[in-house]
Protein backbone atom coordinates (compact mmCIF):
# COMPACT_ATOMS: atom_id res chain seq x y z
CA UNK A 1 0.00 0.00 0.00
CA UNK A 2 2.66 2.40 1.17
CA UNK A 3 4.85 1.34 -1.71
CA UNK A 4 2.21 2.24 -4.27
CA UNK A 5 1.68 5.63 -2.64
CA UNK A 6 5.41 6.31 -3.02
CA UNK A 7 5.42 5.26 -6.65
CA UNK A 8 2.34 7.37 -7.30
CA UNK A 9 4.14 10.34 -5.75
CA UNK A 10 7.01 9.78 -8.14
CA UNK A 11 4.60 9.64 -11.06
CA UNK A 12 3.14 12.97 -9.96
CA UNK A 13 6.65 14.45 -9.66
CA UNK A 14 7.54 13.32 -13.17
CA UNK A 15 4.30 14.69 -14.59
CA UNK A 16 4.69 17.98 -12.74
CA UNK A 17 8.28 18.29 -13.99
CA UNK A 18 7.11 17.89 -17.54
CA UNK A 19 4.36 20.50 -17.13
CA UNK A 20 6.60 22.97 -15.31
CA UNK A 21 9.18 22.62 -18.03
CA UNK A 22 6.61 23.25 -20.74
CA UNK A 23 4.44 25.94 -19.14
CA UNK A 24 6.47 27.37 -16.28
CA UNK A 25 6.29 26.83 -12.55
CA UNK A 26 4.01 29.71 -11.60
CA UNK A 27 1.54 29.36 -14.41
CA UNK A 28 1.01 25.63 -13.92
CA UNK A 29 -1.78 24.98 -11.42
CA UNK A 30 -2.47 21.97 -9.21
CA UNK A 31 -5.77 21.15 -11.01
CA UNK A 32 -3.77 21.03 -14.26
CA UNK A 33 -1.26 18.61 -12.75
CA UNK A 34 -4.10 16.52 -11.31
CA UNK A 35 -5.85 16.48 -14.62
CA UNK A 36 -2.72 15.29 -16.41
CA UNK A 37 -2.58 12.49 -13.81
CA UNK A 38 -6.27 11.73 -14.31
CA UNK A 39 -6.98 12.37 -10.68
CA UNK A 40 -9.08 14.89 -8.80
CA UNK A 41 -7.44 17.97 -7.33
CA UNK A 42 -8.71 16.81 -3.95
CA UNK A 43 -6.97 13.51 -4.33
CA UNK A 44 -3.75 15.28 -5.34
CA UNK A 45 -3.61 16.85 -1.90
CA UNK A 46 -3.44 13.37 -0.38
CA UNK A 47 0.01 13.22 -1.91
CA UNK A 48 1.30 16.76 -1.58
CA UNK A 49 -0.22 19.28 0.80
CA UNK A 50 0.72 22.27 -1.35
CA UNK A 51 2.54 23.32 -4.47
CA UNK A 52 5.49 24.40 -2.29
CA UNK A 53 5.59 20.94 -0.74
CA UNK A 54 5.60 19.47 -4.22
CA UNK A 55 8.45 21.78 -5.20
CA UNK A 56 10.44 20.63 -2.16
CA UNK A 57 9.84 16.96 -2.91
CA UNK A 58 10.83 17.50 -6.53
CA UNK A 59 14.18 18.98 -5.63
CA UNK A 60 14.85 16.20 -3.13
CA UNK A 61 13.94 13.68 -5.83
CA UNK A 62 16.33 15.26 -8.33
CA UNK A 63 19.08 15.43 -5.72
CA UNK A 64 18.62 11.75 -4.83
CA UNK A 65 18.48 10.80 -8.50
CA UNK A 66 21.80 12.51 -9.24
CA UNK A 67 23.33 11.26 -5.97
CA UNK A 68 22.49 7.63 -6.78
CA UNK A 69 24.21 7.91 -10.14
CA UNK A 70 27.31 9.65 -8.75
CA UNK A 71 27.46 7.18 -5.87
CA UNK A 72 27.77 4.34 -8.39
CA UNK A 73 30.74 6.19 -9.89
CA UNK A 74 32.24 6.86 -6.44
CA UNK A 75 31.97 3.18 -5.63
CA UNK A 76 33.78 2.04 -8.78
CA UNK A 77 37.29 1.37 -7.50
CA UNK A 78 38.66 0.60 -10.97
CA UNK A 79 38.00 4.17 -12.17
CA UNK A 80 40.79 6.74 -11.87
CA UNK A 81 39.95 10.18 -10.54
CA UNK A 82 40.02 11.59 -14.06
CA UNK A 83 37.78 8.82 -15.31
CA UNK A 84 35.38 9.59 -12.50
CA UNK A 85 35.25 13.21 -13.63
CA UNK A 86 34.47 12.02 -17.14
CA UNK A 87 31.70 9.75 -15.84
CA UNK A 88 30.14 12.53 -13.76
CA UNK A 89 30.21 14.91 -16.72
CA UNK A 90 28.73 12.17 -18.87
CA UNK A 91 25.79 11.30 -16.61
CA UNK A 92 25.05 14.96 -16.03
CA UNK A 93 24.87 15.66 -19.75
CA UNK A 94 22.97 12.44 -20.36
CA UNK A 95 20.29 13.57 -17.93
CA UNK A 96 20.27 16.98 -19.62
CA UNK A 97 19.58 15.30 -22.93
CA UNK A 98 17.26 12.49 -21.92
CA UNK A 99 15.41 14.07 -19.03
CA UNK A 100 15.88 17.77 -19.66
CA UNK A 101 12.97 18.75 -17.39
CA UNK A 102 14.93 17.55 -14.40
CA UNK A 103 17.97 19.81 -14.75
CA UNK A 104 15.69 22.49 -16.13
CA UNK A 105 13.81 22.52 -12.86
CA UNK A 106 17.04 22.52 -10.88
CA UNK A 107 18.63 25.39 -12.80
CA UNK A 108 15.61 27.54 -13.63
CA UNK A 109 13.32 27.02 -10.67
CA UNK A 110 15.33 25.80 -7.66
CA UNK A 111 18.30 28.10 -8.16
CA UNK A 112 16.31 31.12 -9.40
CA UNK A 113 13.30 31.03 -7.08
CA UNK A 114 14.87 30.79 -3.66
CA UNK A 115 11.77 32.35 -2.03
CA UNK A 116 9.91 29.06 -2.57
CA UNK A 117 12.62 27.19 -0.74
CA UNK A 118 13.62 29.63 1.95
CA UNK A 119 11.52 27.99 4.65
CA UNK A 120 11.62 24.43 3.44
CA UNK A 121 15.14 23.96 2.23
CA UNK A 122 17.50 26.15 4.19
CA UNK A 123 20.85 26.35 2.50
CA UNK A 124 21.65 23.09 0.79
CA UNK A 125 19.46 20.91 2.99
CA UNK A 126 17.30 19.55 0.14
CA UNK A 127 20.19 18.81 -2.20
CA UNK A 128 22.46 17.39 0.50
CA UNK A 129 22.44 13.87 -0.95
CA UNK A 130 23.89 15.19 -4.21
CA UNK A 131 26.39 17.50 -2.48
CA UNK A 132 27.51 14.65 -0.21
CA UNK A 133 28.44 12.52 -3.22
CA UNK A 134 30.53 15.34 -4.62
CA UNK A 135 32.21 15.63 -1.21
CA UNK A 136 32.96 11.91 -1.23
CA UNK A 137 34.42 12.27 -4.73
CA UNK A 138 36.65 15.20 -3.75
CA UNK A 139 37.76 13.61 -0.49
CA UNK A 140 38.73 10.43 -2.31
CA UNK A 141 40.61 12.38 -4.99
CA UNK A 142 42.63 14.28 -2.38
CA UNK A 143 43.31 11.14 -0.37
CA UNK A 144 44.70 9.47 -3.48
CA UNK A 145 46.90 12.50 -4.11
CA UNK A 146 45.18 13.17 -7.45
CA UNK A 147 43.40 16.39 -6.54
CA UNK A 148 44.76 19.53 -4.93
CA UNK A 149 43.69 20.02 -1.33
CA UNK A 150 41.66 23.21 -1.46
CA UNK A 151 38.43 24.73 -0.22
CA UNK A 152 35.45 22.54 -0.98
CA UNK A 153 33.20 25.25 -2.36
CA UNK A 154 35.91 26.58 -4.69
CA UNK A 155 36.10 23.13 -6.24
CA UNK A 156 32.37 22.43 -6.11
CA UNK A 157 31.55 25.76 -7.77
CA UNK A 158 34.08 25.16 -10.51
CA UNK A 159 32.73 21.67 -11.25
CA UNK A 160 28.98 22.14 -10.99
CA UNK A 161 28.83 25.77 -12.10
CA UNK A 162 30.66 24.77 -15.26
CA UNK A 163 28.31 21.86 -16.02
CA UNK A 164 25.21 23.92 -15.18
CA UNK A 165 26.41 26.69 -17.49
CA UNK A 166 26.92 24.27 -20.37
CA UNK A 167 23.47 22.73 -19.87
CA UNK A 168 22.00 26.24 -19.82
CA UNK A 169 23.75 27.17 -23.09
CA UNK A 170 22.54 23.92 -24.60
CA UNK A 171 18.98 24.60 -23.47
CA UNK A 172 19.12 28.04 -25.10
CA UNK A 173 20.33 26.33 -28.31
CA UNK A 174 23.45 28.45 -28.32
CA UNK A 175 25.92 25.57 -28.56
CA UNK A 176 26.94 24.89 -32.19
CA UNK A 177 27.78 21.26 -31.49
CA UNK A 178 25.79 18.57 -29.64
CA UNK A 179 26.28 18.71 -25.85
CA UNK A 180 27.95 15.29 -25.58
CA UNK A 181 30.68 16.33 -28.00
CA UNK A 182 32.05 18.65 -25.30
CA UNK A 183 32.44 15.90 -22.70
CA UNK A 184 36.08 15.18 -23.40
CA UNK A 185 37.33 18.77 -23.42
CA UNK A 186 35.27 19.66 -20.35
CA UNK A 187 36.62 16.64 -18.50
CA UNK A 188 40.13 17.74 -19.38
CA UNK A 189 39.45 21.31 -18.20
CA UNK A 190 37.95 20.25 -14.88
CA UNK A 191 40.73 17.76 -14.25
CA UNK A 192 43.44 20.30 -15.02
CA UNK A 193 41.82 22.87 -12.80
CA UNK A 194 41.50 20.52 -9.85
CA UNK A 195 44.47 18.22 -10.14
CA UNK A 196 47.32 18.12 -7.69
CA UNK A 197 50.42 19.58 -9.34
CA UNK A 198 52.68 18.22 -6.61
CA UNK A 199 52.00 14.61 -7.41
CA UNK A 200 54.93 12.48 -8.37
Amino acid at each position, binding site marked *: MRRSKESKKIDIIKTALRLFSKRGFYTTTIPEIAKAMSMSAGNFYNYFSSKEKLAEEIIRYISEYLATKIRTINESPHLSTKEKIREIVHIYFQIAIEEPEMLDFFLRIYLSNREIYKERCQG*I*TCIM*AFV*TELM*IFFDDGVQKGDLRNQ*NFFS*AFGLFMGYLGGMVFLNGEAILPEPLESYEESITENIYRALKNDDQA
Partner: protein
Amino acid sequence: MMTKPKVIWLQGASCNGNSHAFFNYPYLKTLLQAFDFLYHPLLPSPLPLASIVNDYSITCDILIFEGSVDAKFNRAGLSSDTLLQRFDGRAKTIIAAGTCASFGGIFSENDQNTSGILYRHEQPLNKPLISQSDVINLPGCPVHPHNLATILLALKANQPIPLDTMHRPKEIYAHTVHQGCSRSEYFEWKVDAKSFGHKEGCLFYEQGCRAPMTHGNCNLVLWNEVNSKPRAGIPCFGCTDPKFPNFSFFHTPKNMSIPAEIPLDVSKRAYLTISGIAKTFSIPRLKKRLLDD
Protein backbone atom coordinates in the same frame (compact mmCIF):
# COMPACT_ATOMS: atom_id res chain seq x y z
CA MET B 1 37.82 -9.70 57.07
CA MET B 2 39.06 -9.96 53.51
CA THR B 3 42.78 -10.22 53.06
CA LYS B 4 44.31 -7.19 51.42
CA PRO B 5 45.59 -7.82 47.91
CA LYS B 6 49.29 -7.10 47.54
CA VAL B 7 50.19 -4.46 44.99
CA ILE B 8 53.57 -3.56 43.52
CA TRP B 9 54.02 -0.54 41.24
CA LEU B 10 57.06 -0.62 38.97
CA GLN B 11 58.25 1.56 36.13
CA GLY B 12 59.88 1.12 32.75
CA ALA B 13 60.82 4.08 30.57
CA SER B 14 58.42 6.66 31.90
CA CYS B 15 57.90 10.26 32.89
CA ASN B 16 56.21 9.30 36.19
CA GLY B 17 53.09 11.02 34.90
CA ASN B 18 50.90 8.04 35.78
CA SER B 19 52.27 7.97 39.32
CA HIS B 20 51.55 11.66 39.74
CA ALA B 21 48.12 11.40 38.16
CA PHE B 22 47.36 8.54 40.56
CA PHE B 23 48.42 10.75 43.45
CA ASN B 24 45.55 13.08 42.47
CA TYR B 25 43.04 10.35 43.34
CA PRO B 26 40.92 12.01 46.03
CA TYR B 27 40.22 8.81 47.98
CA LEU B 28 43.82 7.66 48.12
CA LYS B 29 43.66 7.02 51.85
CA THR B 30 40.72 4.64 51.48
CA LEU B 31 42.40 2.92 48.57
CA LEU B 32 45.69 2.48 50.40
CA GLN B 33 43.80 0.93 53.32
CA ALA B 34 42.12 -1.55 50.99
CA PHE B 35 45.42 -2.83 49.58
CA ASP B 36 48.82 -3.77 50.76
CA PHE B 37 51.10 -1.57 48.64
CA LEU B 38 54.51 -3.22 48.76
CA TYR B 39 56.05 -0.64 46.48
CA HIS B 40 55.05 2.64 44.90
CA PRO B 41 57.55 5.01 43.26
CA LEU B 42 56.30 8.04 45.22
CA LEU B 43 54.80 6.70 48.42
CA PRO B 44 56.71 5.44 51.44
CA SER B 45 56.95 1.69 50.88
CA PRO B 46 57.85 -1.14 53.23
CA LEU B 47 60.51 -2.66 50.96
CA PRO B 48 63.30 -1.22 48.83
CA LEU B 49 63.11 -1.61 45.07
CA ALA B 50 66.10 -3.96 44.98
CA SER B 51 64.37 -6.49 47.24
CA ILE B 52 61.14 -6.23 45.31
CA VAL B 53 62.77 -7.11 42.02
CA ASN B 54 65.40 -9.57 43.21
CA ASP B 55 63.62 -11.51 45.92
CA TYR B 56 61.57 -14.14 44.11
CA SER B 57 59.72 -15.05 47.29
CA ILE B 58 57.90 -11.73 47.07
CA THR B 59 54.73 -12.21 45.06
CA CYS B 60 51.82 -9.91 44.51
CA ASP B 61 48.24 -10.03 43.38
CA ILE B 62 48.57 -7.00 41.18
CA LEU B 63 51.58 -5.54 39.45
CA ILE B 64 51.03 -2.03 38.17
CA PHE B 65 53.54 -1.30 35.44
CA GLU B 66 54.09 2.25 34.22
CA GLY B 67 56.21 3.24 31.25
CA SER B 68 57.29 1.56 28.07
CA VAL B 69 59.40 -1.56 27.94
CA ASP B 70 62.86 -0.71 26.70
CA ALA B 71 65.73 -3.15 27.01
CA LYS B 72 68.21 -0.26 27.25
CA PHE B 73 66.38 1.28 30.14
CA ASN B 74 67.34 0.12 33.63
CA ARG B 75 65.55 0.17 36.93
CA ALA B 76 67.34 -1.09 40.00
CA GLY B 77 70.08 -2.34 37.69
CA LEU B 78 67.73 -4.48 35.62
CA SER B 79 66.63 -3.76 32.09
CA SER B 80 62.94 -3.00 32.04
CA ASP B 81 62.03 -6.08 29.98
CA THR B 82 63.84 -8.36 32.43
CA LEU B 83 62.22 -6.53 35.32
CA LEU B 84 58.76 -7.00 33.87
CA GLN B 85 59.32 -10.64 32.96
CA ARG B 86 60.37 -11.44 36.51
CA PHE B 87 56.75 -10.87 37.41
CA ASP B 88 55.23 -13.06 34.71
CA GLY B 89 53.21 -15.50 36.79
CA ARG B 90 54.56 -13.94 39.99
CA ALA B 91 51.79 -11.35 39.76
CA LYS B 92 48.28 -12.66 39.20
CA THR B 93 47.27 -9.61 37.21
CA ILE B 94 49.44 -7.01 35.53
CA ILE B 95 47.95 -3.59 34.92
CA ALA B 96 49.56 -1.56 32.17
CA ALA B 97 49.11 1.92 33.60
CA GLY B 98 49.19 4.45 30.80
CA THR B 99 49.72 4.44 27.04
CA CYS B 100 53.47 3.72 27.28
CA ALA B 101 52.91 0.47 29.17
CA SER B 102 49.90 -0.44 27.02
CA PHE B 103 51.14 0.40 23.52
CA GLY B 104 54.63 1.90 23.75
CA GLY B 105 53.51 5.52 23.69
CA ILE B 106 55.79 8.49 23.24
CA PHE B 107 58.97 6.77 24.33
CA SER B 108 58.64 4.08 21.69
CA GLU B 109 59.15 6.76 19.02
CA ASN B 110 62.94 6.55 19.28
CA ASP B 111 63.37 2.83 19.02
CA GLN B 112 61.60 0.10 17.06
CA ASN B 113 62.23 -2.31 19.92
CA THR B 114 60.54 -0.24 22.60
CA SER B 115 56.96 -1.34 23.23
CA GLY B 116 54.12 -1.77 25.66
CA ILE B 117 53.66 -5.00 27.60
CA LEU B 118 51.61 -6.77 24.92
CA TYR B 119 51.60 -4.35 22.01
CA ARG B 120 53.72 -1.98 20.03
CA HIS B 121 51.13 0.52 18.85
CA GLU B 122 48.38 -1.70 17.39
CA GLN B 123 50.58 -4.71 16.74
CA PRO B 124 50.75 -7.55 19.25
CA LEU B 125 54.40 -8.30 20.07
CA ASN B 126 56.00 -11.15 18.12
CA LYS B 127 57.55 -12.49 21.28
CA PRO B 128 55.12 -11.84 24.14
CA LEU B 129 56.81 -10.51 27.26
CA ILE B 130 54.05 -11.83 29.49
CA SER B 131 52.30 -15.16 29.05
CA GLN B 132 51.23 -16.32 32.51
CA SER B 133 49.71 -13.27 34.16
CA ASP B 134 46.50 -11.59 33.03
CA VAL B 135 47.18 -8.20 31.51
CA ILE B 136 44.77 -5.27 31.66
CA ASN B 137 45.61 -2.26 29.52
CA LEU B 138 44.65 1.13 30.90
CA PRO B 139 45.93 3.54 28.26
CA GLY B 140 46.00 7.30 28.73
CA CYS B 141 48.86 9.75 28.86
CA PRO B 142 48.54 9.65 31.80
CA VAL B 143 45.97 7.05 32.88
CA HIS B 144 43.03 8.62 34.64
CA PRO B 145 43.39 7.97 38.38
CA HIS B 146 39.73 7.03 38.82
CA ASN B 147 40.01 4.40 36.11
CA LEU B 148 43.05 2.84 37.74
CA ALA B 149 41.52 2.99 41.21
CA THR B 150 38.21 1.45 40.20
CA ILE B 151 39.92 -1.37 38.31
CA LEU B 152 42.01 -2.11 41.41
CA LEU B 153 38.86 -2.22 43.52
CA ALA B 154 37.07 -4.41 40.98
CA LEU B 155 40.00 -6.84 41.05
CA LYS B 156 39.88 -6.89 44.81
CA ALA B 157 36.15 -7.62 44.73
CA ASN B 158 36.75 -10.43 42.19
CA GLN B 159 34.35 -8.68 39.88
CA PRO B 160 34.48 -9.74 36.24
CA ILE B 161 36.15 -7.05 34.11
CA PRO B 162 35.10 -7.55 30.48
CA LEU B 163 37.94 -6.55 28.15
CA ASP B 164 37.93 -5.55 24.50
CA THR B 165 40.24 -7.09 21.92
CA MET B 166 43.10 -4.82 23.02
CA HIS B 167 42.81 -5.86 26.67
CA ARG B 168 41.08 -2.65 27.71
CA PRO B 169 38.15 -2.71 30.14
CA LYS B 170 35.06 -2.16 28.02
CA GLU B 171 33.28 -0.24 30.72
CA ILE B 172 35.91 2.49 30.40
CA TYR B 173 37.08 2.34 26.81
CA ALA B 174 33.87 1.48 24.95
CA HIS B 175 33.07 5.17 25.22
CA THR B 176 34.66 7.80 23.06
CA VAL B 177 36.19 10.86 24.70
CA HIS B 178 33.52 12.86 22.88
CA GLN B 179 30.78 11.47 25.11
CA GLY B 180 29.99 13.91 27.86
CA CYS B 181 31.86 16.80 26.28
CA SER B 182 30.37 20.11 27.35
CA ARG B 183 30.80 21.25 23.74
CA SER B 184 28.81 18.39 22.20
CA GLU B 185 25.90 20.61 21.24
CA TYR B 186 28.32 22.63 19.12
CA PHE B 187 29.46 19.40 17.50
CA GLU B 188 25.89 18.33 16.74
CA TRP B 189 24.98 21.62 15.09
CA LYS B 190 28.40 22.10 13.51
CA VAL B 191 29.21 25.35 15.21
CA ASP B 192 32.99 25.31 14.99
CA ALA B 193 35.30 27.16 17.34
CA LYS B 194 36.77 29.96 15.26
CA SER B 195 39.86 30.20 17.39
CA PHE B 196 41.36 29.00 20.66
CA GLY B 197 40.44 30.62 23.94
CA HIS B 198 36.66 30.36 23.80
CA LYS B 199 34.23 28.39 25.90
CA GLU B 200 32.00 28.16 22.82
CA GLY B 201 32.35 26.11 19.68
CA CYS B 202 33.48 22.63 18.77
CA LEU B 203 37.22 21.89 18.42
CA PHE B 204 36.78 19.02 15.95
CA TYR B 205 36.79 20.83 12.63
CA GLU B 206 39.71 23.25 12.97
CA GLN B 207 41.64 22.61 16.18
CA GLY B 208 42.31 18.90 15.67
CA CYS B 209 40.16 17.51 18.48
CA ARG B 210 40.30 13.71 18.35
CA ALA B 211 37.61 13.06 20.96
CA PRO B 212 35.12 11.43 18.52
CA MET B 213 37.86 9.06 17.28
CA THR B 214 39.35 8.17 20.65
CA HIS B 215 38.31 5.53 23.16
CA GLY B 216 38.22 6.90 26.69
CA ASN B 217 36.06 8.54 29.32
CA CYS B 218 37.80 11.89 29.97
CA ASN B 219 34.56 13.80 29.65
CA LEU B 220 32.58 11.40 31.80
CA VAL B 221 35.03 11.15 34.69
CA LEU B 222 36.57 14.57 35.00
CA TRP B 223 40.24 15.31 35.46
CA ASN B 224 41.26 16.57 38.87
CA GLU B 225 37.53 16.38 39.65
CA VAL B 226 36.87 19.62 37.78
CA ASN B 227 37.59 19.62 34.06
CA SER B 228 38.76 17.97 30.87
CA LYS B 229 40.95 19.26 28.08
CA PRO B 230 38.15 19.68 25.51
CA ARG B 231 35.87 21.30 28.08
CA ALA B 232 38.61 23.80 28.89
CA GLY B 233 39.36 24.46 25.23
CA ILE B 234 42.26 22.14 24.50
CA PRO B 235 41.64 19.62 21.73
CA CYS B 236 41.79 15.93 22.61
CA PHE B 237 45.16 14.62 21.37
CA GLY B 238 44.07 10.97 21.31
CA CYS B 239 46.44 10.06 24.14
CA THR B 240 44.67 6.77 24.91
CA ASP B 241 45.04 5.60 21.32
CA PRO B 242 47.52 2.86 20.34
CA LYS B 243 48.88 5.20 17.65
CA PHE B 244 49.55 8.12 20.04
CA PRO B 245 51.52 10.40 19.50
CA ASN B 246 51.37 10.01 15.72
CA PHE B 247 48.56 12.43 15.09
CA SER B 248 48.22 15.98 13.86
CA PHE B 249 48.03 18.17 16.97
CA PHE B 250 46.18 21.51 17.09
CA HIS B 251 45.13 21.16 13.46
CA THR B 252 42.49 19.05 11.72
CA PRO B 253 43.76 17.45 8.50
CA LYS B 254 41.19 17.98 5.76
CA ASN B 255 40.62 16.98 2.15
CA MET B 256 38.89 19.84 0.36
CA SER B 257 37.39 21.07 3.62
CA ILE B 258 36.26 17.56 4.53
CA PRO B 259 37.80 16.14 7.74
CA ALA B 260 40.21 13.34 6.80
CA GLU B 261 39.06 11.40 9.85
CA ILE B 262 35.51 11.26 11.08
CA PRO B 263 33.89 9.83 14.22
CA LEU B 264 34.60 6.15 14.85
CA ASP B 265 32.57 3.72 12.75
CA VAL B 266 30.45 6.46 11.18
CA SER B 267 30.35 6.25 7.38
CA LYS B 268 31.76 9.32 5.72
CA ARG B 269 28.62 9.64 3.63
CA ALA B 270 26.42 9.67 6.72
CA TYR B 271 28.69 12.13 8.50
CA LEU B 272 28.80 14.52 5.53
CA THR B 273 25.06 14.41 4.99
CA ILE B 274 24.20 15.10 8.61
CA SER B 275 26.85 17.75 9.13
CA GLY B 276 26.06 19.45 5.81
CA ILE B 277 22.44 19.77 6.84
CA ALA B 278 23.25 20.81 10.42
CA LYS B 279 25.56 23.52 9.09
CA THR B 280 22.79 25.18 7.10
CA PHE B 281 20.79 26.04 10.19
CA SER B 282 21.81 29.12 12.02
CA ILE B 283 21.01 28.76 15.70
CA PRO B 284 21.30 32.12 17.43
CA ARG B 285 21.77 30.59 20.90
CA LEU B 286 24.80 28.63 19.70
CA LYS B 287 26.22 31.46 17.61
CA LYS B 288 26.43 33.94 20.44
CA ARG B 289 28.82 33.88 23.36
CA LEU B 290 27.42 32.13 26.43
CA LEU B 291 27.56 35.14 28.72
CA ASP B 292 26.36 37.66 26.12
CA ASP B 293 22.81 38.98 26.27
